[in-house]
């Protein structure tokens, strides 16, 4: 085993990072190609008294994949085979390193796809989706990753392998494992549910004169009993930044823009679209456009999904937040977010899953400016505070990781956290699988020992 553990500084430096702004200090990295090799790696780490951490593509934003000092990084990118596709049952067994977009691409000729579609879907792995219970625009009607995982083959922190599914346990261990951020063990094979591709799709781009009106329209659409397949909002600054390079025909004069997509059978799509058109106009829509071709639709989604990248064209660094608030509070919380950013003299942009109240305020900055990080951190925690005060939660899809670990007490009581810790202990009594994440420091909850440098704590 020691032969296949890479320890050169360059590689360790790279696998010590993900898409967050944090940095870890691992002791080794290995690339198993089978369940047996993952098992071997876990046992090797145990024998050496090391902790270990599973890694996918490293696209997480909450630092969930940042290794704690001295841990073994078990990188699953070489386990990238689709083991089987069961077209009749609409399911597939895949290895954790399969990329989200690749899976849908490979199942498309059967008219099927994997529903969760995080913006990083071209790069992120199914294993990572399981760990973070990932979302995406189309989770509004289809549900998040947890709703699409039928069974898991898992290497437990003890080194044993088992299958978690509905048939072999009373408790929903599968459900508990999804979203456990790598702290319950390592999924080495995943049975995913595949969803039928919709026969009809209508994608609408709607402009509004104010963020408030846009947010009110979102609530009204849902309240009317329409569940679009996706309902996204972008504010004016991000719309302008994106339009500059995507040229998707986004309304540049609008203060806020909605992307509303309805899919399904012919009449429900046509009726739903008409109703949406009617509602948005009642809420003062300044422009309304329906994508006329699949190419036009693809361009709209390209603009939406790569939106955050456009920020690098404005400021070199960004901090992408992720909280959820009740839909009716969207307008109120968005205005609070802009006040918070103004107070800390930071630029802010919003591009988010409005349909399920999942905010993504993006704070932009240049980290080379003195003291800017303090302001970013302050603004970040204020955004979390106002979201919770509005009845919301810490994270809708990015996870807690290291980023929001110490905000957990803002949302949960000590006893809530204690029971979360109990669940963790049942899977990982020694706390060796991705330690120090999710549960806050102090009390009986957190794992012992050091904190990675650069942690947002």
């Amino acid at each position, binding site marked *: 085993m020691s032969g296949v553990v890479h320890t050169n500084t*360059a590689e360790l430096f790279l*696998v010590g990072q993900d898409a967050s702004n944090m940095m870890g200090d691992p002791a080794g990295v290995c690339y198993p190609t089978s369940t047996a090799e993952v098992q071997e790696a876990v046992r090797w780490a145990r024998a050496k008294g090391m902790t270990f951490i599973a890694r996918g593509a490293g*696209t997480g934003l909450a630092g969930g994949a940042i290794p704690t000092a001295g841990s073994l990084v078990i990188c699953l990118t070489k386990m990238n085979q689709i083991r089987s596709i069961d077209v009749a049952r609409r399911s597939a067994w895949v290895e954790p*390193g399969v990329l989200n977009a690749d899976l849908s691409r490979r199942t498309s*000729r059967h008219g099927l796809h994997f529903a969760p579609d995080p913006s990083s879907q071209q790069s992120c792995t199914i294993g990572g989706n399981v760990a973070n219970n990932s979302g995406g625009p189309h989770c509004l009607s289809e549900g998040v990753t947890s709703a699409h995982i039928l069974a898991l083959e898992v290497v437990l922190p003890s080194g044993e392998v088992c299958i978690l599914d509905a048939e072999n346990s009373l408790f929903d261990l599968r459900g508990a494992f999804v979203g456990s951020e790598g702290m319950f063990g390592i999924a080495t094979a995943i049975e995913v549910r595949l969803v039928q591709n919709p026969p009809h799709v209508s994608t609408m781009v709607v402009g509004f004169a104010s963020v408030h009106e846009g947010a009110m329209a979102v609530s009204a659409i849902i309240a009317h009993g329409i569940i679009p397949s996706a309902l996204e909002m972008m504010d004016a600054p991000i719309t302008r930044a994106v339009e500059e390079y995507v040229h998707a025909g986004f309304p540049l004069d609008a203060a806020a823009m909605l992307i509303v997509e309805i899919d399904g059978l012919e009449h429900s799509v046509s009726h739903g679209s008409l109703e949406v058109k009617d509602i948005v106009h009642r809420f003062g829509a300044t422009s309304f456009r329906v994508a006329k071709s699949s190419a036009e639709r693809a361009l709209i989604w390209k603009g939406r999904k790569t939106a955050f*990248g456009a920020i690098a*064209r404005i400021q070199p660094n*960004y901090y992408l937040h992720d909280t959820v608030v009740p839909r009716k509070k969207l307008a109120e919380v968005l205005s609070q977010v802009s006040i918070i950013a103004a107070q800390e003299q930071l630029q802010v942009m919003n591009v988010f899953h409005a349909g399920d109240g999942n905010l993504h305020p993006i704070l932009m900055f240049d980290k080379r400016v003195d003291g800017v990080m303090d302001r970013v951190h302050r603004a970040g925690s204020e955004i979390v505070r106002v979201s919770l005060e509005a009845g919301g939660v810490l994270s809708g899809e990015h996870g807690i990781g290291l980023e929001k670990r110490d905000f957990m007490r803002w949302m949960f009581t000590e006893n809530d956290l204690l029971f979360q810790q109990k669940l963790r202990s049942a899977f990982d009594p020694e706390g060796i699988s991705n330690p120090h994440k999710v549960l806050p420091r102090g009390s009986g909850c957190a794992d012992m020992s050091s904190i990675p440098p650069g942690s947002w704590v």
Partner: protein
Amino acid sequence: MSNIAGRFQLVNEEDLNTCVNCGLCLPHCPTYRVTGEDIFSPRGRINLIRSVKHGDLELTKDVVTALDTCIQCMGCEPACPSGVKYHEIISPVKAELHTRWNLRDATLRCGLYVVTHMRTLRFFTSAISVAQKLKVFPQKLPVPKLNFRQPHFNIDAESSSKREVLLYTGCVMDAWYRNVHLDTIALLEALGYSVQVSGDEYGCCGALHEHAGFAQVAEKIQSKIPRPTNSSMMVVNSAGCSASLKKTLAENRVVLDINELLHLHIEDLQKILVRQNETVLVQEPCHLRHVQGISQEVKELLEISFTVTQLEDDGLCCGAGGSFSFSQPVMATAVRQRKIDEIDRVIDSISPHSVHYLASANPGCSSFLSGCGFDVEIAHPVSLLAQSLRPRISGGGQ
């Protein structure tokens, strides 16, 4: 090594800062795709270059390997939402790494010397063709079946068309793929162009040298390319060369890739090309798709005469990468294998043996792919289109 590390200072800090570590480039990088290792990814390489530049990381053997194994296919650039100019970051680094000296490098230098000397190149070409006939030339090498003597250009001297175009003939393209030039001329003349050929005076464009990191040699070659006194358009049928010449001659003349030019005349072509009952699978050269942004054009052109199928790999590199397949054979072969698997997968998914040609608009890709005993005929899209030309009516033109 430390003096080389010092030269990493040439990389622009702003270019490095544009990368936010998001990882959206990862699946578009052929070396990450085949290894799954961050160190062989654009994000990883940028991170390494930045850290070496800032003195946070030493320029160890592992860092050099990571940088050496970059094919420079530029698949990461169009994929990057932040607009990182990866070529601006990797090119100076590649150039600096080539101040090393080893056997493989020395052999590479010899090869690159040959392509800039057309007589020597033609001599070797004839020699290889003899060796191929005697079956003593290793089939595995990425060299297509060569002719002892190249067919002559047969230019329609009578043509008095006002549409003039200069066909850039290049080095390897002319010595090994003269037929593609003849097909290009046939198509252009059918479209009413009067075609001139650049000939050996223009020689090599230096793309191979630049790509391999021999920046100074490349500059020298590029400075020798004649700058025209008239401003006729130049057309190039090798994707790697058209990408390079567009840059080199940016201030002197209009340079178009042949696919680009033909696509401008797609309606005329629809009139003069006949339908063939064959299926073509398109392999997109990186320098066409990623560097020049020419992708659907080739498909649309071929669709005039053929049933066209595309690969579903976002134009991932085939591993040829100019001289990359020579300098990094292990990585190049792994990348090629992935491409071949993808081709096989697509062919299987249609129905067995229904693909007749693999179209590739770059000689590097064609020869590298032909070196693996591929059982589908590899052809330049221009040759496939020329095959479909209606028999010419006397007088030519339209």
